[in-house]
Structures are given as structure tokens and as C-alpha cells.
């Protein structure tokens, strides 16, 4: 039961980040390798507002989301859009450059020390034999509410239909009068805000360190590759699946009572990528493009 709770906590973080990324990858086909750093900056901004400026937590969270939105907008305008028009692989290299710059800025401003938005020990509650604290319950609940809210917008509003049309076929959507370039920008900013949510989540649940960036990026990409290109719910489901497999890998005795070393936990996401790309590159849930 503890393993399932741990998977729910870790999976919620990955689901937030992977969800936004799947939309970006679905529309633009762009790999944003600075995603992990964008996650951290959202979290660090919230930490700074709450711990250094002493603003209330709710205002700090809004501030963190705002910083995430501005950063992703700037990333789109400077590193993605001017290069994506020439070749869709160019943003891959520009976002690598951006990740180095953001890493340097994070280290200069926040140093290597772990930073927690809500420091101190939290009292755990015991639910069905598993320990979970109220901050974690709140985070899981908010993540699920965010995903449900997003599901409503995506499937039941005109804006959501336009979004899905652009993800499915940008040119066809544009021919019907949908402003695909504007929506691409909006999708990118939305993915940045979801990434900032993930950073805030990480900062509240545990702490923020600059070394977390790359593993976060890899786990998010593992989820979207396994889920299928542009498949939002596939990415969410696979994020939780990867988190569950990570917990099972190190928490369950294998092969006659041996435990796999905790250092191999991140290898689960990597093996997900390897297995899916070798045997099912389209992912678990293939987004079918309708044809006339």
C-alpha cells in the first residue's frame, strides 16, 4: 500500500509535467530539453517569494506560475519559433543551450543547497497502513482536480476543440480558420505553467536542487513516448505507470528475496524509453489522424 501511495505522489508530479509536454510534442514535434530547468525555476520562484519575501503561500504559488508562464513564453519566442520554422530539429539544440544557461542561473541565484518551499518535518497520517502527510494529500488532490479541469476544457469547450484540432492536424485546423500559430504559442505557455506546477509540487513535497532537472526531463519524455505522440491522457497514464514501476522495482524483493538497488530507480524510466522505441515506437495509445 505504501508503494502505491508513493507511486501516486511521484506519478502526480510526472503527470503534470508530461501532460503539458505531450501537447507541445503533439503540435510542434519539438523536444524541449530545458523542461527540467523550467520545472525548477517555477519551484524556486515560489520558494523565493514564500521563504525570502515572506508572501503568503497562495500568492507565492501564483507568482511561481506567472514566472513559469513568462519563461515558457520567452523560450518559445527566442529558442523555438525562429528555429522550428527552418527545421524542427533545431529547437532540440537551442533548448540544450537554454538548459545550460538556466542551470547556470539557478546555481548563481539559488546555489546547490536544497530548498524547500515548506521546510520542516510534516506529520504523517496513516491511511490503510501507508504513511502520507496532509501536504501530499493536498498535492495529489490538486493534481487530479487540475487534470479533471483540463479534461473538461479539452473535451467540452470550443477552445478545447480548437486545441485538439491543432494537435491532430495543424494545417487542416488553420484552413478552417483556427489561428494555429497563436494556439501553438498558447500550448507552449500552458506546458510551461504545468511544468511550474510540477516544480512547486516538488518544492512543497520534498525540496529543490539543481541536479533534479535532467532526471525530470527524461521521466517526462519516457511518459510521452510510452503514451503516444500528442496523446495527452496516454502521457498522464504512463507517468503514473512509470512511477508505479519505479516503486515496485526497488520496493519489492525479486529473484529469491533480493532487492534492486535504489540507484537503479531512474533506470526504469530509461528502460521504458528503450523498450517502447524498439518494440512499439507509436506508444500505447496511438492518436489516429482522421482521413477523408
Amino acid at each position, binding site marked *: 500500500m505504501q508503494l502505491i501511495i508513493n507511486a501516486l505522489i511521484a506519478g502526480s508530479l510526472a503527470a503534470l509535467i508530461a501532460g503539458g509536454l505531450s501537447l507541445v510534442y503533439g503540435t510542434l*514535434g519539438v523536444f524541449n530539453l530545458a523542461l527540467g530547468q523550467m520545472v525548477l525555476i517555477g519551484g524556486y520562484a515560489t520558494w523565493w517569494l514564500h521563504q525570502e519575501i515572506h508572501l503568503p503561500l497562495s500568492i507565492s504559488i501564483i507568482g511561481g506560475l506567472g514566472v513559469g508562464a513568462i519563461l515558457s513564453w520567452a523560450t518559445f519566442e527566442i529558442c523555438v519559433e525562429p528555429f522550428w520554422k527552418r527545421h524542427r530539429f533545431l529547437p532540440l539544440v537551442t533548448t540544450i543551450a537554454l538548459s*545550460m544557461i538556466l*542551470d*547556470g542561473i539557478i*546555481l548563481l541565484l539559488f546555489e546547490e543547497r536544497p530548498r524547500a518551499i515548506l521546510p520542516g518535518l510534516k506529520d504523517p497520517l496513516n491511511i490503510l497502513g501507508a504513511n502520507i502527510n496532509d501536504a501530499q494529500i493536498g498535492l495529489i488532490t490538486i493534481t487530479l482536480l487540475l487534470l479533471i479541469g483540463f479534461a473538461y476544457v479539452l473535451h467540452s469547450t470550443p477552445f478545447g476543440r480548437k486545441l485538439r484540432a491543432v494537435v491532430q492536424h495543424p494545417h487542416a485546423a488553420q484552413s478552417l480558420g483556427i489561428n494555429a500559430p497563436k494556439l501553438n504559442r498558447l500550448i507552449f505557455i500552458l506546458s510551461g505553467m504545468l511544468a511550474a506546477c510540477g516544480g512547486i509540487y516538488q518544492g512543497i513535497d520534498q525540496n529543490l536542487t539543481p541536479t533534479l532537472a535532467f532526471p525530470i526531463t*527524461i521521466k517526462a519524455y519516457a511518459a510521452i*513516448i510510452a503514451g503516444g505522440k500528442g496523446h495527452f491522457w496516454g502521457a498522464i497514464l504512463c507517468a503514473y505507470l512509470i512511477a508505479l514501476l519505479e516503486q515496485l522495482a526497488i520496493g519489492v524483493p525479486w529473484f529469491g528475496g533480493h532487492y534492486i538497488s535504489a540507484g537503479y530507480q531512474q533506470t526504469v524510466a*530509461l528502460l521504458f524509453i528503450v523498450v517502447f*522505441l524498439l518494440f512499439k515506437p507509436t506508444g500505447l495509445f496511438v492518436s489516429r489522424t482522421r482521413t477523408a
Partner: protein
Amino acid sequence: MDFFWHTIALLGTLLPSILGHNLIFGKGKILHFGPVGISILSVYATILVLMATQSFTLALLAGLGISLLASLFFAWLSLRLDPDALGVMTIALHLVALSIVLNWSSLTHGALGIPRIPRLPFLDSVFDFALLSFGICILWILFMWRIDRSAFGRQLAALSEHEWHAESLGIDRMKVHCSAFLIAGAGITIVNFIYPQYVMFISPNDYQFPAFVFMVMAIVAGKPGSVLGVTLSTVLLIVLKEALRFVPLAPSILGPVRLILFGLILFGAVYWRRDVLFPQRRSV
């Protein structure tokens, strides 16, 4: 003067692998992001055999064997996967190799690395390494330049431009890809034979993703596919990297400043080379 010889010695520990990767990524436009993954397998194979047998010949052969096998595997992946899938796959495989090295402590000493690596008898000083590096670099540059100008180089460029058209003209994609990867693997072997002897120590930290980013920077800044251009950019970047050590800043500030500076250089290089890095397909 020692700094000058040290810079030349470092060139020999980087240039062969960078020029090899230039053949794949720069000339062939193959999104192979795993040369450092091959490197980590090769270097640990080399050093573990060296420490076990004290034979430099066996160590070199072991490193070469592992390097070529891993290169062939990546070549097979390049034939099987789409370009962006290959990019993600090769990063994942690099990180898997790194994870195994970090966690298999009984064999690799984990994050502590392997110290006290012996040197070849004639390599005593920085000057000896510089001389060896210089010789290797000249030979490797001439070899890569020759390949670039040969029919093989033209076949690789043709495949990068339009695979189907190139294959319809009789170019064997499998043969060309495998050859390119094997040549790059040989370059990796050279580097991983010299570098550990120079520093007398190997650590998994030297084989993280930033090591690959440095290679990309050198290739993009020097003009992808150009042997002389990439050589010049590698020299300049190594000089810059080493010269930054003398800047009077605290280490906690110098490290991040270096990251930001190299990130800006990479971005500038991509902006400058945006039409050459992944060129538009020519049309009649």
C-alpha cells in the same frame, strides 16, 4: 609553458572523438546523442582490463572491441528509428550505461571512480602527452579529411540530404551508416586510451550529458561536416575552457558563469549555423 603543453595534451583527448562524431552528426545529420555512452563503456572496458592484466595491448583491444560493438548497435538503431526517436533513445542508453557504472560499485567503484591508472613507459610528463596528442591529432585530421573528400563522404552527405534518392542511386544506407559509426567508435577508443593515462584517474562524472554538449558545441560552432572548421572550434573551445580557470572568481561563481557562457556560445553557434546544421532539402 606547461599550460600550453597541457592544452595540446587535452586536444588529443578530445579531438578524435569530436571529429568522429562530426562525421555522424555534422556530415550525416544523424541525431546520435550517445557517443558519450559508447565512451563510458569503452573507457571502463579499457581500464578494467588494464588494471586486471597490466597489459596495454589487451586493454586497447578490449576498449576497441567494446567501442566497435556498441557503435554497431547504435548504427542498427539509426537504421531502425526515426531521427527524433533515435535522439531520445541514444540519450536513454547513455544514461543507462552511466547508471550501471554508478551502481555496480564492486566492479567500477561507482561514483568514486578508478584511481592510480598506470601510464605507458614513455609517457612521463605533460610534454610527452602533448607530443603524442599532437601526432595523433595530425594523423586523425588527415584521415578524417581524406574520408570527407572521398566517395564515402559524398555518399554520407547524399544520404543526409535525401535518403530515398541516395538509395535509388545505389548507395547502401546500411553500409554507409555502419562505417560512419565504426570510424567514430575508433576515434572514441583513441581518446579513451589516452585520457585516463593523462589524468591517471577515471570518474563517471566526466561522462555525463555536459560532455556530449561540449562535442555538439564544437561541431556546430565549427560548421557541421567540416573537418578543419570543427578542429579549429575544438581548439578555441578547449583554450577558452582552460583559460577560464585563471579568472579570479570564486569556484561557486565561476562554474555557473562557465555554464552560462557556453550555453550562449552554443545558442549563438546554432543561430549562426541555422541554415547549415539541418539544411533544407534541395529541390529542382
